[in-house]
Protein backbone atom coordinates (compact mmCIF):
# COMPACT_ATOMS: atom_id res chain seq x y z
CA UNK A 1 0.00 0.00 0.00
CA UNK A 2 1.32 3.45 -0.74
CA UNK A 3 -0.01 6.76 0.50
CA UNK A 4 -0.13 10.02 -1.41
CA UNK A 5 -0.05 13.37 0.40
CA UNK A 6 -3.03 15.26 -1.07
CA UNK A 7 -2.33 18.99 -0.51
CA UNK A 8 -5.94 19.48 0.62
CA UNK A 9 -6.78 16.24 2.48
CA UNK A 10 -3.39 15.04 3.80
CA UNK A 11 -1.94 11.54 3.34
CA UNK A 12 -4.50 9.13 1.86
CA UNK A 13 -4.40 5.59 0.41
CA UNK A 14 -3.45 5.59 -3.28
CA UNK A 15 -6.68 3.70 -4.07
CA UNK A 16 -8.55 7.00 -3.57
CA UNK A 17 -6.67 8.65 -6.43
CA UNK A 18 -6.66 8.46 -10.18
CA UNK A 19 -3.29 8.60 -11.92
CA UNK A 20 -3.22 11.33 -14.56
CA UNK A 21 0.29 10.66 -15.85
CA UNK A 22 3.64 12.43 -15.90
CA UNK A 23 3.52 16.16 -16.44
CA UNK A 24 3.60 16.68 -20.18
CA UNK A 25 3.39 20.34 -21.23
CA UNK A 26 1.10 20.95 -24.16
CA UNK A 27 2.80 22.70 -27.08
CA UNK A 28 1.44 26.00 -28.43
CA UNK A 29 -1.23 24.81 -30.89
CA UNK A 30 -0.88 27.82 -33.20
CA UNK A 31 2.79 27.23 -33.94
CA UNK A 32 3.36 23.51 -33.33
CA UNK A 33 4.36 21.12 -36.11
CA UNK A 34 2.63 17.78 -36.70
CA UNK A 35 5.71 15.97 -35.43
CA UNK A 36 5.82 17.99 -32.21
CA UNK A 37 2.12 17.36 -31.67
CA UNK A 38 2.48 13.59 -32.14
CA UNK A 39 5.46 13.55 -29.77
CA UNK A 40 3.26 15.35 -27.24
CA UNK A 41 0.50 12.78 -27.74
CA UNK A 42 2.59 9.62 -27.52
CA UNK A 43 6.07 10.12 -26.07
CA UNK A 44 6.69 10.01 -22.32
CA UNK A 45 10.02 10.09 -20.45
CA UNK A 46 9.07 6.96 -18.46
CA UNK A 47 12.01 7.57 -16.16
CA UNK A 48 13.18 5.32 -13.36
CA UNK A 49 13.61 7.89 -10.63
CA UNK A 50 11.90 11.06 -9.48
CA UNK A 51 9.07 12.07 -11.84
CA UNK A 52 6.73 15.07 -11.83
CA UNK A 53 3.17 13.73 -12.01
CA UNK A 54 -0.47 14.82 -11.94
CA UNK A 55 -2.95 12.99 -9.74
CA UNK A 56 -6.69 13.40 -9.23
CA UNK A 57 -8.23 12.79 -5.81
CA UNK A 58 -11.38 11.16 -7.18
CA UNK A 59 -12.63 9.69 -3.89
CA UNK A 60 -11.84 12.81 -1.86
CA UNK A 61 -11.63 16.51 -2.64
CA UNK A 62 -11.82 15.87 -6.41
CA UNK A 63 -8.99 18.22 -7.20
CA UNK A 64 -5.97 17.74 -9.41
CA UNK A 65 -2.54 18.29 -7.92
CA UNK A 66 1.10 17.80 -8.86
CA UNK A 67 3.58 15.73 -6.93
CA UNK A 68 7.02 14.19 -7.35
CA UNK A 69 7.07 10.40 -7.04
CA UNK A 70 10.01 8.01 -7.28
CA UNK A 71 8.94 5.37 -9.81
CA UNK A 72 10.96 2.57 -8.24
CA UNK A 73 10.45 3.09 -4.49
CA UNK A 74 7.06 4.87 -4.85
CA UNK A 75 8.17 7.51 -2.31
CA UNK A 76 6.74 10.99 -2.78
CA UNK A 77 8.08 14.46 -2.03
Amino acid at each position, binding site marked *: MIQLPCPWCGPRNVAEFRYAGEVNPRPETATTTT*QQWRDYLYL*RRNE*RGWVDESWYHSAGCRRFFRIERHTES*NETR
Partner: protein
Amino acid sequence: MVSRIGRNGSSNGHRRSLLNGSRYSAFSLVKHGLFADDWPRAWRSHDLRSSYDVIIIGGGVHGLATAYYLAENHGITNVAVLDKGYLGGGGSGRNTAILRSNYLTPEGVRFYDRSLELYRHLAADLNFNVMFSRRGHLTLAHNDASLRTMRWRAEVNKLSGIDSEVIDPAQIRELVPHLDTSDTTRYPILGALYHPPGGIIRHDAVVWGYARAADARGVHLHQKTEVTGIDVSAGRVTGVQTNRGPVSAPIVVNATAGWSTLISDMAGVRTPVQTFPLQAAVTEPVRPFLHAVVVSGTLHVYVSQTDRGELVFGASVDPFTSYSMRGSLEFVEGLASHVLELMPALSKMRLLRQWAGLCDMTPDYSPIMGRTPVEGFYLDVGWGTYGFKAGPVSGEAMAQAVATSATPEIIAAFGLDRFSDGALVGEKGAAAVGH
Protein backbone atom coordinates in the same frame (compact mmCIF):
# COMPACT_ATOMS: atom_id res chain seq x y z
CA MET B 1 -2.63 -15.95 -45.35
CA VAL B 2 0.19 -16.69 -42.94
CA SER B 3 3.49 -15.89 -44.52
CA ARG B 4 6.15 -18.50 -43.99
CA ILE B 5 9.31 -16.84 -42.81
CA GLY B 6 12.60 -18.61 -43.03
CA ARG B 7 12.82 -22.36 -43.01
CA ASN B 8 11.28 -22.95 -39.66
CA GLY B 9 7.89 -24.58 -39.66
CA SER B 10 8.41 -26.67 -42.75
CA SER B 11 10.10 -29.40 -40.80
CA ASN B 12 7.13 -29.37 -38.45
CA GLY B 13 8.88 -31.07 -35.63
CA HIS B 14 10.79 -33.65 -37.59
CA ARG B 15 14.11 -31.85 -37.46
CA ARG B 16 16.87 -34.18 -36.40
CA SER B 17 19.47 -32.14 -34.71
CA LEU B 18 22.84 -32.34 -34.01
CA LEU B 19 24.77 -31.82 -31.47
CA ASN B 20 27.44 -33.10 -29.12
CA GLY B 21 25.42 -36.21 -28.29
CA SER B 22 23.19 -34.45 -25.75
CA ARG B 23 19.87 -35.13 -27.41
CA TYR B 24 17.05 -35.82 -24.95
CA SER B 25 14.88 -38.89 -25.50
CA ALA B 26 12.88 -41.22 -23.26
CA PHE B 27 15.73 -43.72 -23.47
CA SER B 28 18.48 -41.21 -22.66
CA LEU B 29 16.51 -39.84 -19.70
CA VAL B 30 15.91 -43.28 -18.17
CA LYS B 31 19.49 -44.35 -18.76
CA HIS B 32 20.89 -41.16 -17.30
CA GLY B 33 18.48 -41.22 -14.36
CA LEU B 34 19.54 -44.76 -13.43
CA PHE B 35 23.25 -44.79 -14.09
CA ALA B 36 24.70 -41.28 -14.07
CA ASP B 37 25.57 -39.13 -11.05
CA ASP B 38 24.70 -35.70 -12.15
CA TRP B 39 22.88 -33.95 -14.95
CA PRO B 40 25.09 -31.85 -17.23
CA ARG B 41 24.22 -28.18 -17.56
CA ALA B 42 21.85 -27.46 -20.45
CA TRP B 43 23.99 -24.54 -21.62
CA ARG B 44 27.53 -23.33 -21.12
CA SER B 45 29.20 -20.21 -19.73
CA HIS B 46 31.73 -18.29 -21.81
CA ASP B 47 34.18 -15.47 -21.44
CA LEU B 48 32.87 -12.27 -22.93
CA ARG B 49 34.48 -11.73 -26.34
CA SER B 50 35.56 -8.25 -27.34
CA SER B 51 33.28 -8.32 -30.37
CA TYR B 52 30.27 -10.16 -31.78
CA ASP B 53 28.29 -9.95 -35.02
CA VAL B 54 25.05 -9.41 -33.12
CA ILE B 55 24.40 -8.44 -29.49
CA ILE B 56 20.95 -9.11 -28.08
CA ILE B 57 20.11 -7.30 -24.85
CA GLY B 58 17.66 -9.28 -22.73
CA GLY B 59 17.79 -13.03 -22.05
CA GLY B 60 14.08 -13.74 -22.04
CA VAL B 61 12.02 -15.67 -24.53
CA HIS B 62 12.27 -12.88 -27.13
CA GLY B 63 16.03 -12.46 -26.96
CA LEU B 64 16.75 -16.19 -26.82
CA ALA B 65 14.33 -16.96 -29.65
CA THR B 66 15.95 -14.24 -31.78
CA ALA B 67 19.37 -15.80 -31.11
CA TYR B 68 18.08 -19.30 -31.86
CA TYR B 69 16.46 -18.35 -35.17
CA LEU B 70 19.51 -16.28 -36.20
CA ALA B 71 21.59 -19.45 -35.83
CA GLU B 72 19.02 -21.95 -37.07
CA ASN B 73 17.41 -20.10 -39.98
CA HIS B 74 20.21 -17.77 -41.06
CA GLY B 75 23.46 -19.44 -39.96
CA ILE B 76 24.56 -16.41 -37.90
CA THR B 77 26.14 -17.86 -34.75
CA ASN B 78 28.60 -15.21 -33.56
CA VAL B 79 25.85 -13.86 -31.33
CA ALA B 80 25.76 -12.84 -27.67
CA VAL B 81 22.68 -12.64 -25.47
CA LEU B 82 23.28 -10.35 -22.47
CA ASP B 83 21.08 -10.36 -19.39
CA LYS B 84 21.58 -8.29 -16.26
CA GLY B 85 20.06 -11.07 -14.12
CA TYR B 86 19.40 -14.68 -15.02
CA LEU B 87 17.75 -16.12 -18.14
CA GLY B 88 13.96 -15.85 -18.03
CA GLY B 89 13.93 -13.82 -14.80
CA GLY B 90 11.82 -10.97 -16.15
CA GLY B 91 8.54 -11.07 -18.00
CA SER B 92 9.29 -14.55 -19.40
CA GLY B 93 9.12 -16.04 -15.92
CA ARG B 94 6.36 -13.80 -14.54
CA ASN B 95 3.58 -14.07 -17.11
CA THR B 96 0.59 -16.40 -16.78
CA ALA B 97 1.70 -18.55 -19.76
CA ILE B 98 -1.51 -18.22 -21.77
CA LEU B 99 -1.33 -18.70 -25.55
CA ARG B 100 -3.98 -17.54 -28.02
CA SER B 101 -4.33 -15.81 -31.38
CA ASN B 102 -7.89 -14.41 -31.34
CA TYR B 103 -6.88 -10.76 -31.70
CA LEU B 104 -8.81 -7.86 -33.17
CA THR B 105 -6.75 -6.40 -36.03
CA PRO B 106 -5.81 -8.49 -39.10
CA GLU B 107 -2.14 -7.58 -38.49
CA GLY B 108 -2.34 -8.85 -34.92
CA VAL B 109 -4.28 -12.00 -35.74
CA ARG B 110 -1.82 -13.06 -38.43
CA PHE B 111 1.16 -12.33 -36.22
CA TYR B 112 -0.02 -14.13 -33.07
CA ASP B 113 -1.32 -17.08 -35.08
CA ARG B 114 2.14 -17.64 -36.56
CA SER B 115 3.43 -17.67 -32.98
CA LEU B 116 0.86 -20.26 -31.95
CA GLU B 117 1.88 -22.40 -34.91
CA LEU B 118 5.54 -22.23 -33.90
CA TYR B 119 4.62 -23.05 -30.29
CA ARG B 120 2.68 -26.09 -31.47
CA HIS B 121 5.76 -27.91 -32.69
CA LEU B 122 8.31 -26.14 -30.51
CA ALA B 123 8.93 -29.14 -28.25
CA ALA B 124 10.05 -31.23 -31.22
CA ASP B 125 12.02 -28.38 -32.83
CA LEU B 126 13.96 -27.65 -29.65
CA ASN B 127 14.09 -31.25 -28.38
CA PHE B 128 12.76 -29.93 -25.06
CA ASN B 129 9.39 -30.65 -23.48
CA VAL B 130 7.63 -27.27 -23.25
CA MET B 131 4.36 -28.84 -22.01
CA PHE B 132 2.04 -27.04 -24.42
CA SER B 133 -1.53 -27.85 -23.45
CA ARG B 134 -4.22 -26.84 -25.96
CA ARG B 135 -7.36 -26.60 -23.92
CA GLY B 136 -9.54 -23.83 -25.28
CA HIS B 137 -9.73 -20.17 -24.31
CA LEU B 138 -12.89 -18.33 -23.23
CA THR B 139 -13.21 -14.55 -23.08
CA LEU B 140 -16.40 -13.76 -21.17
CA ALA B 141 -18.74 -10.91 -22.09
CA HIS B 142 -20.71 -9.33 -19.26
CA ASN B 143 -22.37 -6.51 -21.22
CA ASP B 144 -23.59 -5.60 -24.68
CA ALA B 145 -20.48 -3.63 -25.58
CA SER B 146 -18.13 -6.54 -24.91
CA LEU B 147 -20.46 -8.96 -26.68
CA ARG B 148 -20.27 -6.71 -29.75
CA THR B 149 -16.45 -6.67 -29.55
CA MET B 150 -16.45 -10.50 -29.24
CA ARG B 151 -18.60 -10.80 -32.35
CA TRP B 152 -16.28 -8.41 -34.20
CA ARG B 153 -13.22 -10.39 -33.10
CA ALA B 154 -14.84 -13.71 -34.07
CA GLU B 155 -15.50 -12.43 -37.61
CA VAL B 156 -11.98 -10.98 -38.03
CA ASN B 157 -10.56 -14.27 -36.74
CA LYS B 158 -12.67 -16.41 -39.05
CA LEU B 159 -11.60 -14.33 -42.05
CA SER B 160 -8.01 -15.25 -41.18
CA GLY B 161 -8.92 -18.92 -40.85
CA ILE B 162 -8.75 -18.99 -37.06
CA ASP B 163 -11.05 -21.16 -34.97
CA SER B 164 -13.01 -18.60 -32.95
CA GLU B 165 -16.74 -18.28 -32.22
CA VAL B 166 -19.18 -16.52 -29.91
CA ILE B 167 -21.02 -18.99 -27.68
CA ASP B 168 -23.96 -18.59 -25.29
CA PRO B 169 -24.18 -19.26 -21.52
CA ALA B 170 -25.53 -22.81 -21.99
CA GLN B 171 -22.48 -23.74 -24.06
CA ILE B 172 -20.19 -21.99 -21.54
CA ARG B 173 -21.74 -24.08 -18.73
CA GLU B 174 -20.93 -27.22 -20.64
CA LEU B 175 -17.27 -26.24 -21.06
CA VAL B 176 -16.75 -24.81 -17.56
CA PRO B 177 -19.41 -26.11 -15.15
CA HIS B 178 -17.87 -24.26 -12.20
CA LEU B 179 -18.60 -20.80 -13.61
CA ASP B 180 -21.55 -18.96 -12.10
CA THR B 181 -23.62 -18.45 -15.26
CA SER B 182 -26.81 -17.49 -13.42
CA ASP B 183 -28.43 -14.12 -14.13
CA THR B 184 -28.44 -13.07 -10.47
CA THR B 185 -24.79 -12.04 -10.25
CA ARG B 186 -23.62 -8.44 -10.32
CA TYR B 187 -22.20 -8.91 -13.84
CA PRO B 188 -24.17 -11.77 -15.46
CA ILE B 189 -22.33 -13.68 -18.19
CA LEU B 190 -24.04 -12.98 -21.53
CA GLY B 191 -21.75 -14.98 -23.78
CA ALA B 192 -18.12 -15.66 -24.56
CA LEU B 193 -15.61 -15.68 -27.37
CA TYR B 194 -14.49 -19.32 -27.59
CA HIS B 195 -11.08 -20.03 -29.11
CA PRO B 196 -10.33 -23.79 -29.04
CA PRO B 197 -6.63 -23.54 -30.15
CA GLY B 198 -5.72 -21.40 -27.12
CA GLY B 199 -4.00 -22.95 -24.13
CA ILE B 200 -1.17 -22.79 -21.64
CA ILE B 201 2.47 -23.80 -21.69
CA ARG B 202 5.35 -24.10 -19.21
CA HIS B 203 7.01 -20.71 -19.65
CA ASP B 204 10.32 -21.61 -17.97
CA ALA B 205 10.66 -24.62 -20.26
CA VAL B 206 10.26 -22.37 -23.31
CA VAL B 207 13.09 -20.15 -22.06
CA TRP B 208 15.33 -23.10 -21.18
CA GLY B 209 14.56 -24.88 -24.45
CA TYR B 210 15.52 -21.85 -26.54
CA ALA B 211 18.61 -21.24 -24.39
CA ARG B 212 19.81 -24.83 -24.77
CA ALA B 213 19.14 -24.91 -28.51
CA ALA B 214 20.84 -21.53 -29.08
CA ASP B 215 23.84 -22.60 -26.99
CA ALA B 216 24.16 -25.83 -28.97
CA ARG B 217 24.38 -23.77 -32.16
CA GLY B 218 27.23 -21.63 -30.84
CA VAL B 219 25.42 -18.60 -29.37
CA HIS B 220 27.01 -17.16 -26.21
CA LEU B 221 24.60 -16.66 -23.30
CA HIS B 222 25.94 -14.16 -20.73
CA GLN B 223 24.01 -13.89 -17.48
CA LYS B 224 24.70 -11.22 -14.84
CA THR B 225 25.98 -9.01 -17.64
CA GLU B 226 24.34 -5.63 -17.39
CA VAL B 227 24.47 -3.19 -20.28
CA THR B 228 25.43 0.23 -18.93
CA GLY B 229 25.74 2.15 -22.18
CA ILE B 230 25.36 1.85 -25.95
CA ASP B 231 28.04 3.29 -28.23
CA VAL B 232 26.74 5.23 -31.20
CA SER B 233 28.97 7.07 -33.62
CA ALA B 234 27.83 9.00 -36.70
CA GLY B 235 24.31 7.57 -36.45
CA ARG B 236 25.53 3.95 -36.27
CA VAL B 237 25.66 1.63 -33.31
CA THR B 238 29.19 0.32 -32.67
CA GLY B 239 28.87 -1.68 -29.46
CA VAL B 240 27.81 -1.70 -25.83
CA GLN B 241 29.37 -1.01 -22.43
CA THR B 242 28.74 -3.65 -19.79
CA ASN B 243 29.68 -4.31 -16.18
CA ARG B 244 32.14 -6.88 -17.59
CA GLY B 245 33.72 -4.47 -20.05
CA PRO B 246 33.03 -3.08 -23.51
CA VAL B 247 31.89 -5.25 -26.42
CA SER B 248 31.76 -4.07 -30.01
CA ALA B 249 29.13 -5.14 -32.50
CA PRO B 250 27.59 -3.64 -35.65
CA ILE B 251 24.10 -4.78 -34.60
CA VAL B 252 22.43 -4.42 -31.20
CA VAL B 253 18.89 -5.65 -30.53
CA ASN B 254 16.92 -4.29 -27.58
CA ALA B 255 14.79 -7.29 -26.54
CA THR B 256 14.12 -6.15 -22.99
CA ALA B 257 10.81 -5.67 -21.26
CA GLY B 258 10.06 -3.44 -18.29
CA TRP B 259 13.38 -1.60 -18.57
CA SER B 260 13.27 -1.18 -22.36
CA THR B 261 12.98 2.62 -22.10
CA LEU B 262 16.28 2.78 -20.19
CA ILE B 263 18.03 0.74 -22.90
CA SER B 264 16.48 2.70 -25.79
CA ASP B 265 17.49 5.95 -24.09
CA MET B 266 21.13 4.77 -24.04
CA ALA B 267 21.05 4.73 -27.84
CA GLY B 268 19.18 8.04 -27.96
CA VAL B 269 16.01 6.45 -29.35
CA ARG B 270 12.78 7.67 -27.76
CA THR B 271 9.85 5.26 -27.65
CA PRO B 272 6.22 5.78 -26.62
CA VAL B 273 6.45 3.26 -23.80
CA GLN B 274 5.19 3.49 -20.22
CA THR B 275 6.10 0.86 -17.63
CA PHE B 276 3.28 -0.55 -15.48
CA PRO B 277 3.50 -3.46 -13.03
CA LEU B 278 1.08 -6.35 -13.51
CA GLN B 279 0.32 -8.65 -10.63
CA ALA B 280 -0.54 -12.33 -10.62
CA ALA B 281 -1.10 -15.01 -8.01
CA VAL B 282 -1.25 -18.78 -7.67
CA THR B 283 -3.23 -21.08 -5.35
CA GLU B 284 -2.44 -24.39 -3.71
CA PRO B 285 -2.79 -27.35 -6.10
CA VAL B 286 -6.10 -29.20 -6.33
CA ARG B 287 -7.44 -31.98 -8.53
CA PRO B 288 -7.99 -30.95 -12.16
CA PHE B 289 -11.43 -29.40 -12.67
CA LEU B 290 -10.86 -26.40 -14.91
CA HIS B 291 -10.17 -27.53 -18.47
CA ALA B 292 -10.21 -24.17 -20.26
CA VAL B 293 -8.57 -20.77 -19.83
CA VAL B 294 -11.20 -18.29 -18.61
CA VAL B 295 -10.79 -14.53 -19.06
CA SER B 296 -13.10 -11.76 -17.91
CA GLY B 297 -12.35 -8.23 -19.05
CA THR B 298 -15.08 -6.67 -16.94
CA LEU B 299 -13.78 -8.37 -13.79
CA HIS B 300 -10.09 -7.79 -14.73
CA VAL B 301 -9.12 -11.40 -14.19
CA TYR B 302 -7.99 -14.53 -16.02
CA VAL B 303 -7.87 -18.04 -14.59
CA SER B 304 -6.26 -21.27 -15.71
CA GLN B 305 -5.27 -24.50 -13.99
CA THR B 306 -1.72 -25.75 -14.45
CA ASP B 307 -0.78 -29.37 -15.04
CA ARG B 308 0.25 -29.49 -11.38
CA GLY B 309 -3.25 -28.43 -10.34
CA GLU B 310 -2.58 -24.88 -9.13
CA LEU B 311 -4.92 -22.14 -10.26
CA VAL B 312 -3.04 -19.23 -11.83
CA PHE B 313 -4.75 -15.84 -11.63
CA GLY B 314 -3.69 -12.75 -13.53
CA ALA B 315 -5.10 -9.25 -13.62
CA SER B 316 -4.86 -6.07 -15.62
CA VAL B 317 -1.95 -3.72 -15.06
CA ASP B 318 -1.71 -1.64 -11.87
CA PRO B 319 -3.40 1.78 -12.00
CA PHE B 320 -0.15 3.78 -12.15
CA THR B 321 3.32 3.46 -13.67
CA SER B 322 6.15 2.00 -11.63
CA TYR B 323 9.38 0.03 -11.87
CA SER B 324 8.61 -1.62 -8.52
CA MET B 325 7.81 -5.33 -8.53
CA ARG B 326 6.28 -5.48 -5.04
CA GLY B 327 2.81 -6.91 -4.72
CA SER B 328 -0.01 -5.05 -2.97
CA LEU B 329 -2.78 -6.08 -0.61
CA GLU B 330 -5.34 -4.10 -2.63
CA PHE B 331 -4.59 -6.32 -5.58
CA VAL B 332 -5.19 -9.58 -3.70
CA GLU B 333 -8.43 -8.29 -2.21
CA GLY B 334 -9.76 -7.19 -5.59
CA LEU B 335 -8.59 -10.37 -7.30
CA ALA B 336 -10.18 -12.65 -4.72
CA SER B 337 -13.54 -10.89 -4.91
CA HIS B 338 -13.54 -11.02 -8.71
CA VAL B 339 -12.56 -14.68 -8.87
CA LEU B 340 -15.33 -15.53 -6.39
CA GLU B 341 -17.88 -13.70 -8.52
CA LEU B 342 -16.90 -16.00 -11.38
CA MET B 343 -16.48 -19.22 -9.38
CA PRO B 344 -18.08 -19.07 -5.92
CA ALA B 345 -16.97 -22.65 -5.19
CA LEU B 346 -13.37 -21.48 -4.79
CA SER B 347 -14.06 -19.60 -1.54
CA LYS B 348 -11.97 -22.02 0.56
CA MET B 349 -8.96 -22.07 -1.77
CA ARG B 350 -5.76 -20.62 -0.36
CA LEU B 351 -3.37 -18.42 -2.30
CA LEU B 352 0.22 -19.62 -2.11
CA ARG B 353 1.97 -16.55 -3.46
CA GLN B 354 1.65 -13.43 -5.55
CA TRP B 355 4.18 -11.61 -7.70
CA ALA B 356 4.48 -8.76 -10.17
CA GLY B 357 6.13 -8.27 -13.53
CA LEU B 358 6.75 -5.14 -15.56
CA CYS B 359 4.73 -4.37 -18.70
CA ASP B 360 5.83 -1.86 -21.34
CA MET B 361 2.53 -0.39 -22.48
CA THR B 362 2.27 1.37 -25.84
CA PRO B 363 -0.52 3.77 -26.88
CA ASP B 364 -2.13 1.26 -29.28
CA TYR B 365 -1.50 -2.01 -27.36
CA SER B 366 0.76 -3.28 -30.14
CA PRO B 367 4.52 -3.90 -29.96
CA ILE B 368 7.35 -1.82 -31.44
CA MET B 369 9.58 -3.93 -33.69
CA GLY B 370 12.28 -3.37 -36.27
CA ARG B 371 14.73 -0.63 -37.23
CA THR B 372 15.29 2.72 -35.55
CA PRO B 373 16.82 6.04 -36.66
CA VAL B 374 20.12 4.66 -35.27
CA GLU B 375 21.57 2.34 -37.91
CA GLY B 376 22.11 -1.19 -36.55
CA PHE B 377 20.00 -0.63 -33.40
CA TYR B 378 16.84 -2.74 -33.50
CA LEU B 379 13.85 -2.70 -31.20
CA ASP B 380 11.73 -5.61 -30.02
CA VAL B 381 9.93 -3.79 -27.20
CA GLY B 382 6.57 -2.47 -26.05
CA TRP B 383 5.29 -5.93 -25.26
CA GLY B 384 2.65 -4.80 -22.79
CA THR B 385 0.66 -7.76 -21.54
CA TYR B 386 1.05 -9.98 -24.63
CA GLY B 387 4.81 -10.55 -24.96
CA PHE B 388 5.14 -14.16 -23.93
CA LYS B 389 2.66 -15.56 -26.44
CA ALA B 390 4.52 -13.69 -29.19
CA GLY B 391 7.98 -15.02 -28.29
CA PRO B 392 8.59 -17.47 -31.15
CA VAL B 393 7.25 -15.31 -33.98
CA SER B 394 9.12 -12.27 -32.63
CA GLY B 395 12.35 -14.22 -32.54
CA GLU B 396 11.77 -15.51 -36.05
CA ALA B 397 10.89 -12.09 -37.46
CA MET B 398 13.64 -10.19 -35.61
CA ALA B 399 16.20 -12.75 -36.77
CA GLN B 400 15.06 -12.22 -40.34
CA ALA B 401 15.10 -8.43 -39.96
CA VAL B 402 18.67 -8.54 -38.61
CA ALA B 403 19.95 -11.11 -41.10
CA THR B 404 18.46 -9.57 -44.24
CA SER B 405 18.40 -5.86 -43.23
CA ALA B 406 14.83 -5.76 -44.54
CA THR B 407 11.66 -5.58 -42.46
CA PRO B 408 9.67 -8.83 -42.73
CA GLU B 409 6.13 -8.30 -43.90
CA ILE B 410 4.63 -9.91 -40.79
CA ILE B 411 5.99 -7.11 -38.56
CA ALA B 412 5.77 -4.25 -41.09
CA ALA B 413 2.81 -2.71 -39.24
CA PHE B 414 4.67 -2.61 -35.89
CA GLY B 415 7.46 -0.14 -36.78
CA LEU B 416 8.48 2.74 -34.51
CA ASP B 417 7.65 5.21 -37.31
CA ARG B 418 3.93 4.49 -36.98
CA PHE B 419 3.76 6.96 -34.10
CA SER B 420 4.91 9.77 -36.37
CA ASP B 421 2.90 8.58 -39.41
CA GLY B 422 -0.25 8.07 -37.35
CA ALA B 423 -0.78 4.52 -38.68
CA LEU B 424 -1.49 2.97 -35.27
CA VAL B 425 -2.57 -0.67 -34.88
CA GLY B 426 -5.41 -0.38 -32.35
CA GLU B 427 -5.38 -3.68 -30.49
CA LYS B 428 -6.88 -2.50 -27.20
CA GLY B 429 -10.16 -4.35 -27.73
CA ALA B 430 -8.39 -7.72 -27.69
CA ALA B 431 -5.18 -7.13 -25.75
CA ALA B 432 -6.28 -5.22 -22.65
CA VAL B 433 -7.96 -7.20 -19.91
CA GLY B 434 -9.15 -4.00 -18.32
CA HIS B 435 -10.97 -2.96 -21.45
